[in-house]
């Protein structure tokens, strides 16, 4: 019986490892979004000084 439980838990462990890699990739995407926003903000402020 314990083998059955072990096997089932292994399946969920493997699947959850993959889901965690997906989540980690999501976090990387969010980070790049933030850097992009920062660069855009800098560009806008730069652009504003020039037009004034």
């Amino acid at each position: 019986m314990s083998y059955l439980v072990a096997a089932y838990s292994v399946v969920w462990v493997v699947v959850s490892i993959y889901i965690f890699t997906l989540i980690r990739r999501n976090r990387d995407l969010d980070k790049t979004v933030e850097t992009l926003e920062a660069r855009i903000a800098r560009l806008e402020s730069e652009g504003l000084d020039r037009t004034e």
Partner: protein
Amino acid sequence: MKLSIKDLLIFTLLTVTMELALIWALQIAPPDRMQGDVQRIFYFHLGSIWPGFLAFFYVMYGSARYLAGRDLHWDRKSLASGEIGLVFCTIVLTTGPIWAKPTWGVWWSWDARLTSTVVLWLIFLGYINLRHYIDDESKRPRISAILGIVGACVVPFVYMSTRLFETQHPKPVIMGDEDSGIKDPNMTIALVLAMAAFTLLYICLWRIAVTQFQARDRLDKLKTRLSLLEDEY
């Protein structure tokens, strides 16, 4: 990640079949005469081999489509499919020994199916890892597409060779082979449900991974356009 209706539909279908498969495999299907309850591992051990196959042949299809049309979209799809195929292969490789121990008394036996799954696992680990070692981004999809096709072509030969090997050298006495015991109708239903559940899981994970890759591509495009703008100023 906004969930389209299609995603929601697949997700609910997945949870329903997963529940059904669990109930069927654990309660309704009768325990195997020889191995008792341990035989229930078999349902999703075999159930997860099927989406593994599906994943690897999709890698071939996606890679062929990429080489034909050079559309990055196809490369992302076959990469996602390769990754999830690897996940299912790992499931088969981990549940296999857990099931082999009580039934055959040994953690690992060079049974035809297990050996071929190991080879499959190595082939597609190579496919996924090769990408990290190719520096030139424009070459990466093309090179891994070719490896994807060759890898998927090897799969049937791996299975044929291990089966041919096994018919020629019949195994020493094994306690009950997995086909032992008459196939009770409930057993087959449990097996089919497990297969369906895992295939739906494959589709669900695959869709998430593909949308994620596409989001990353869109971000990269934005990055280049931004660096172009920064050049102007």
